[in-house]
């Protein structure tokens, strides 16, 4: 099937646009990097700098990761019911049924 005029226009626009990057920031040593947003940048170096500029200007982080958005494999929202609903009635998977011995202290 030949692509429609609109598809061709979209593809051309995409080729001109800078790729999208997802930004992950670690708030302090020992914590996980957390997804905090996305931005456009032409390449990895600029993506990292722009992430620093946009997402860490209020001392939010000590480390930044950027990942090209098109490199992320995501679950299909349409599969949500199939993938996640079956866990709804399996409350026994939570550790709330165990009694902690007092000598463990705060956990």
């Amino acid at each position: 099937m030949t692509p429609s005029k609109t598809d061709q226009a979209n593809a051309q626009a995409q080729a001109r646009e800078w790729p999208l990057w997802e930004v992950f920031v670690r708030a302090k040593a020992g914590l996980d990097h957390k997804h905090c947003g996305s931005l456009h940048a032409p390449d990895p170096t600029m993506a990292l700098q722009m992430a620093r500029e946009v997402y860490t200007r209020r001392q939010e982080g000590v480390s930044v990761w950027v990942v090209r958005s098109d490199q992320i494999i995501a679950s299909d929202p349409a599969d949500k019911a199939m993938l996640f609903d079956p866990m709804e009635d399996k409350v026994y998977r939570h550790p709330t049924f165990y009694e902690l011995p007092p000598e463990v202290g705060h956990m």
Partner: protein
Amino acid sequence: MTAVASIEIKAAPAQEYLLRIGDTCLIHAQRLAEWSGHAPILEEDIALTNLALDLVGQARALLTHAGAALGYDEDQLAFLRDERDFRNATLVELPSRKGGRDFADLALRNFVLAAWLNVLWAKLEASSDAEVAAIAGKAVKEARYHVAHAAEWVVRLGDGTDESARRMARAVERTWPYLAELFEDDAVDEAAERAGLGPRRSALRADWAALVEPVLADARLAVPEAGQFRSTGMRGVHSEHFGYVLAEMQVLQRSYPGGVW
């Protein structure tokens, strides 16, 4: 509205020396602020504002310190001095967004100045004036990032498309004549060096060139030959553009003296 009278500065060489650096940071920041809302992309818009705010912070620290000896605070120095009492390098007062200038001019100006400040702050960390050394210790980290950030743009534009390369080459041509001022000494430099306050300007050239030349080579930009022109902003003799910068920067304090947020 009551216009407020200007203050006049009679600075000893030590204060002259600090005002040259502080005023260069301040006016560079003022020109950068003109790009707020006009940068080519949103992310760079924020980056330029961050950069300008770092420079304002550096200017505030130096103006406060120099002002303590002069009997004025940072606001009086920034908002109530007339043109001839400012000591910034002429380069930073030149038009940056309007007046036929474009983002290439800005990227290059950012780069050469960040490199100059980076080298200067690094040497000022050893200042005999403990306050100056402390200011430099904080500022040198900011300047190091400014160099890295600006260098990325210089390389991308210089070694980019035909159009961007042409504009970068034009920016080099327009910027280079104003660099001589950043590396030539006078009595103020000699006094500062003698007192251990900070380096003479000519002592910055080698380290600056070591930062700048590899980036220009990457960007495939040729360095013009040294010319005869000398700008004189650091001696208080400014270009015709500077009055407009001050008019915009000072209008609020001049019209509403002592006004605060």
